[in-house]
């Protein structure tokens, strides 16, 4: 009789870590007081205002894993006046 499927321990730990990170990132990047206008933060040239948090986290995973950080950039938060 095959054993019932279970979530692998490593998968569970990775998911819990992602959830904790998602709780943090969603607050720090998507909430909080915006004083300097509509700042635009982009990762890899993709405007984060138009991508979901899961995409952001996946991108960050890759960037952190790769350790280069070279594909991140952002526009001047004060905008062009």
């Amino acid at each position, binding site marked *: 009789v095959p054993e019932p499927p279970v979530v692998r321990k490593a998968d569970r730990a990775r998911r819990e870590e992602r959830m904790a990170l998602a709780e943090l990132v969603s607050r720090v990047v998507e909430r909080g*007081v915006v004083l300097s206008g509509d700042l635009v933060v982009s990762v890899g040239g993709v405007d984060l205002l138009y991508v979901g948090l899961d995409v952001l986290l996946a991108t960050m995973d890759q960037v952190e894993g790769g350790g280069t950080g070279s594909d991140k950039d952002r526009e001047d938060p004060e905008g062009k006046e």
Partner: protein
Amino acid sequence: VGYHLYCLVPPGARPSKGLAGIDGAPVTGLDEGPLGLWVSEMETAPRPTVDGIRAHDRVIRAAMDAGSTPLPMRFGQWFSNRRRLVDRLEEKGAAYQAALADLEGSVEMGVRIVDPSEILRDSLREQSAGSGREFMEGLARLQRESRGRDELAQALAEDLRKRLGAVARRERVEPLEPGLGVVSIAHLVARSEVTAYRQVVENAGRDRPDLSYHRTGPWPPYSFVE
């Protein structure tokens, strides 16, 4: 010199000596009229790295742990010089002063509610990646089941709202994409009610053994400022 702004605090509130911010930059306190500011001098705007985001949050938590409830800034509030920072502050200074007074004594608590069976499905899907038919069948099943997710998220929030009563001053409900949970709910709670809050959420989770309730917090009130 440029300034990265972490949070607004009552005037006179100062970071402890040695508090490090993004990229290890020292954190200093400034007073501008009725508001205090915790900032780091930075030549350029910080990049949105995970380490930077964690450092930003760590500084704001330090302000919260010092006693007063800060107004947390969204990551990336950088100004090329102090004059520009002050100009922006003056536009909304009265509103921020009122918000500080309104939030004083409160913290943000959170709960992320997860459907373990959903995670099991995701895990199986990943394990069977490459098996085209199983993968497509799994996706179709997820799509069918996702239709009821928003309704479930709202029902879970409603259940917590009733249980918490006056313990929660405000709430913010965010239904989640599959894989990250069913819903993330933030509540604004008096510091003195944190223990009561945790107990209520624990009881709610006990009554839903089919779901996992992950409590988070206390947080600075990110979800209750604009």
